[in-house]
């Protein structure tokens, strides 16, 4: 058991677990034919069957049961503040499963030349009066009943009056912002706190204007909109839910990473000697000092940054997204690829940090411009 805990602690480190998920991800949500072939071969579509749901839930519940046996994991899992996040784990998976399950079924029907389930289904019709109102009332009553049980069973996680000389460690954002807080580790506040959230909202609003494929609307399907779905699920699961989980369960004092079975030691130290791209190139690679001139100093950063946003789109348009580019046209494609590249920038920066201890690609603290 101790070895198992050590192993779980080991693989929980984000460099491991996020990498694993990142690699498995396209096989579970295949964006291309090649991945789909492997998806079939590895039988990953098993996850979206009823048995798959039971298996995943058994795994979750098993983990919880093992978890509460352990003093440290119990503390994190059962902390009144964290209970909603434990619930989130189950709920997110359930709704993911529900949509994927129906999508899979429809894909099969369409492959067999039939209409999707929704086409025949009368259940998606409901009368506002009396049915919808009635159902809503019942939902209301049940929700209140649930809240009563919750409030009796778990004491409100109230703390003492705020004291500026005694701030909590770790100081955590509310759970729904933990993803953003996690981004703060890798980006400057103006990016992680302002630009990215704005882009997220704009991006979400832009979806209906970018994705105007009418043929596959009105029913669940994965195969027929696999690019759209896999990109969205990646952003949603990997970059949002996942970071909330990490922030809640795995970030301890001083914002250090702790495995689920690890004691949150206040004095744990981690190597934090991050350097900028300019240092990396001028000092480490070229062995010369930093140039005085800011533009000259950050020239490589600018090359990387503009290269990423200016060269990548046409490059991708010629290769991976050739078809997409053709169907979308230049403008729509431009917006789409900008949003996608921005999204992917987060994991890229994370890996650069983990691998090269890279602090900033462009670092101009003189103007508070750090990317």
């Amino acid at each position, binding site marked *: 058991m101790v070895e198992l805990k050590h192993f779980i602690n080991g693989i929980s480190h984000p460099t491991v677990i996020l990498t694993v998920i990142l690699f498995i991800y396209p096989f579970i949500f295949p964006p291309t034919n090649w991945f789909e072939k492997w998806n079939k071969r590895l039988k990953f579509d098993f996850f979206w069957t009823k048995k798959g749901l039971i298996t995943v839930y058994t795994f979750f519940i098993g983990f919880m049961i093992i978890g509460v046996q352990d003093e440290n994991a119990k503390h994190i899992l059962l902390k009144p503040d964290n209970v909603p996040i434990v619930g989130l784990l189950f709920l997110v998976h359930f709704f993911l499963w529900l949509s994927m399950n129906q999508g899979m079924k429809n894909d099969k029907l369409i492959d067999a030349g039939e209409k999707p389930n929704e086409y025949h289904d009368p259940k998606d019709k409901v009368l506002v009066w009396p049915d919808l109102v009635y159902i809503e009332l*019942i939902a209301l009553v049940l929700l209140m009943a649930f809240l009563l049980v919750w409030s009796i069973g778990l004491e409100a996680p109230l703390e*003492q009056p*705020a004291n500026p*000389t005694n701030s909590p460690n770790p100081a955590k954002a509310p759970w729904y912002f933990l993803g953003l807080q996690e981004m703060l580790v890798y980006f400057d506040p103006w990016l992680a706190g302002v630009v990215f959230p704005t882009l997220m909202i704009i991006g979400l609003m832009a979806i209906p204007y970018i994705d105007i494929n009418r043929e596959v609307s009105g029913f669940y399907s994965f195969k027929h909109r696999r690019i759209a779905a896999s990109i969205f699920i990646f952003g949603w699961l990997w970059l949002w839910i996942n970071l909330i989980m990490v922030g809640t369960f795995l970030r301890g004092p001083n914002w250090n990473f702790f495995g689920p079975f690890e004691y949150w030691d206040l004095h744990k130290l981690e190597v934090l000697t991050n350097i900028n791209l300019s240092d990396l190139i001028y000092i480490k690679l070229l062995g010369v000092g930093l140039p005085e001139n800011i533009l000259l100093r950050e020239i490589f950063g600018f090359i990387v940054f503009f290269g990423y946003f200016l060269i990548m789109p046409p490059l991708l348009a010629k290769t991976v997204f050739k078809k997409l580019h053709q169907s979308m046209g230049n403008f729509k494609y431009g917006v789409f690829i900008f949003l996608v590249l921005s999204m992917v920038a987060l994991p890229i920066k994370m890996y650069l940090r983990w691998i090269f201890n890279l602090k900033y690609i462009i670092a101009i603290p003189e103007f508070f411009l750090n990317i």
Partner: protein
Amino acid sequence: MDKQERHYNIFKLNRVFAISSILFLLLLIWTFADDYSRSWRTYQSEFREMEIVQTDSLLKLEEKMLNEMSEYQEALSLLKTVEESLTEKDEELERFEDELSSLDDDKYAASQEYISVKAEYDVAKYLYEEAVAKGHGDPEETGSKLERLEASLLQHRLKSEEAEQKYEDIEEQILGIKADKKAAQDQISRLRRKAEVLGKKLQKVDPDEMTFGNRLGNSIRDLPVLDFLAPYYKIDQIVIKDITEDLNFANVPKVDRCTTCHMGIATPGYEDAPQPHTTHPDLELYLLSESPHPKESFGCTSCHSGRGRGTDFTYSAHTPRNEEQAKEWEEKYGWHELHYWDTPMFPVQYTEAGCFKCHNQEIYLEGADKLSLGTNLIERAGCFGCHTIERYQDKRRIGPDLNRIASKVSKDWTYLWIRDPKAFRHNSWMPKFFELENNSSDEDVARTNQELHAIVHYLFNNSEDFSLNDVPRWGDVTRGEDLVNSLGCLGCHRIENEPTDEVTSLQSLRRDHGPNLVGVGAKTSREWIYNWLKEPKRFSPETTMPNLRLSNQEAADIAAYLMTLDGNGFKGQEVPSQNNLELDKIVLSFLLQMNSDYDSRIMLSGMEEKEKLDYTGEKLIRFYGCFGCHNISGFEDEKPIGIELTEVGIKHADKLDFGLLKIEHTKLAWFTQKLLHPRSFDKDKVKTAYEKLRMPNFDFDEAEVEALSTALLGFEKASYGVKPARSVNPDVHEGQWLVREFNCQGCHFVEGDGGAVRPTITDWLRSANGIDQETAEEVTADFSPPDLNSQGSKTQPDWLFEFFKKPFIIRPSLKARMPTFHFTDDEWNSIIKYFQFLDGQELAYESPHHVDITTSSYKAGEKLQELGECNKCHFYGTTFPSQTADTWAPNLALVKERLRPEWVSAWLDDPQSMMKGTKMPAPSIPTLEEVQDPDVLEFVGEDVAALAGNRSVLINGLTDYLYTIPGKIDISREVLGYFSKNGYNFLQPVEDEEGDEWDDEEW
């Protein structure tokens, strides 16, 4: 709409709705049940039961007492007889009452008639005035009407008054008949008052005693929802406006709900009840409205800390006293530590820490023994030498001055002493720095052996020259010993070879004020001791050792005696030789702190050996903070090395470094560990030599650590608006501090505490006079330094000031000597003001006491003094008393300069009440009856007889007389001359004179 178009089964929905509604209802009931099962309700109903039982038994007791009380029985029987006698007068009474009612009618009718006539008269007056002034009507006609009505009004008034008078007469007669009954009833209700109160209380709490209506109310007032009106069981809270809670962004009044569960806390009678119903152990000092800390103004958490708003065991932040209690609480109350509360309740053994929330400026806090012990230990151990504590800012360093060390001790002795002071003197306050938990490895010892060389080198190299005068005479050891035992040296010093099992107390610490003198002969020279005794300030300008004004012979005798105290010394211990390789390593470590590796090595190679020793010596003294306790040249303005402790009481446990030690992560556990094993937090840590912890080990025992922790826990900035009187008076604070710092209580009683020297005086009396222990104890007080009780109202401030500056003999037979302290005028004034504060004496200037020697009271006073034979014991100037030296009392010629007349009168009136155990008898003041006897009359004389019975006038007369006694004031020389001829051993039992020998005494 198509009626058939339904997509949901309405019956199914109905069923789901019904089930969820029932579920919701059940949960709602559960919510109520959960809320109404909170523990405080149980406690309140438990307490109600106890209250019923207690009130009932008290009531029964009271009734029983009344039954046995003759006064009450008499009143009852009186009432009975009165009532019986009243029945005889029944007829008469009835007649009177009938008459009264008919008179009442008459009275009413008459007054009504008068009122109506008066109304008419007023109208007529108005009309007449109108007619005269404005001409509206006929003045003559209205005038005559007014006259007529005036006459009628007079008549009616007379009639009405007559009726009233008659009524009152009858009423009085009735009352007269009933008077006895009323008196008897009043008497009974006066005696029954307590019983009535108890009865009413019982009616309130006990349903069986209630009226039907109340019982009905009682059964519904606590029902859910209805209980918003006037519930019996409710949360009880005390809101304290003057004491606020700092919520960092706002100050809000403190709210304490502790009494919700602790209902019996302020009610006597529940001392043995189980918690939470127990009565507070000290109601005299706390909670009751007549105590100094009424609960309405202080609440509970102002002192105890904790979460006052909590109404649950855990959430009020109770803190267990130890692990066992924690376990017990976990089982009994489901207790767990309240993580999110910065100020948990003090564990019960540390409760006194709470006193410092207001009384933090006080040096000695009566009643808070543990806290006072803690602060006293801090003062003795000199914690503030290394740790800034605001309370002790700018206090003198507690250790000896090392600026002239070379003239006092040898280098080798110093080396061994620093290495292990307790090996030389078992109870030294000098703590141990070396060979502790974190520096005992061979490597460490090799280093510290060389460190010691460097430190000793620095001290001796920087020692100033100090010329020692030769001892002019050959000292006598026996005489020296006698002097040490009798002069009062032992009020501050001990001579103790081996540790004793004495428990540390304020009293024991007083005798630890100066060093234990054991081994002093092995440490220094006869010359040094002689020079030191003659003038301590010459060697050490800041010392607290006073000047005892010793003659050359006395000083030589004492030096000779002290030289014989050589103890075990450092027998067999040797100073390790100097090792230059190790020294280089130390030098390098220090050089590296400020310089690069390259530079350091160059600097090291350029250093001579002496330079190295100088350099490291200075660095090491700074590192270990020796200057915190000692004056060392070169370190006069150095900042203390330790962390500030001014507010350590509110420091959070997570700001303390527990290292890798597996102990409980609480502040108290940390304090305890740190004080017992100061270096233990370095365990398993990787540190270089000069990164290690350096707090030395003081060898505190667990009781001392508890007291110290109590004080530390109390150190916080008091934020309360309440300020005790002493805190706002800086003179009192200063005076109190001087009394503490210079150990006045080693000899004297101040505020009823002190006199540590007395047991040693007993020993001396016994051995010097050859009397037994019991006798010696009996007379100890008479031959000990005085009790300073009532000093502030006793002496004239300017006399006291002069005396402090230049003490002389007051009690002739006292061998203990008031030393000369070299205080400034300000300091002496603070001490005087402190004494005056204790006695509520505020005047600094008083008019001199004028005596009119022609008054009869003065003459009576003179006679009384003659009759009282004051001269048996008291000196009159240089006139010696008629009795022997053992009863000698102060010079009465001194009274006019020294004492305040108010005090003298009070003292003459009742000496015992002012100074318990004094041998001064109260003068016999004849009463009026006594002087009726012609013999007595003749004996006391006319003047006294004329005023007999008027005690205060006679006493004032005696006081007046005392203020006119002439003669020399300072008779020290005469007294000392007598004793140097006859010796002090006058207590030796003399067979024939036993009798009333002890009856008269000094004051």
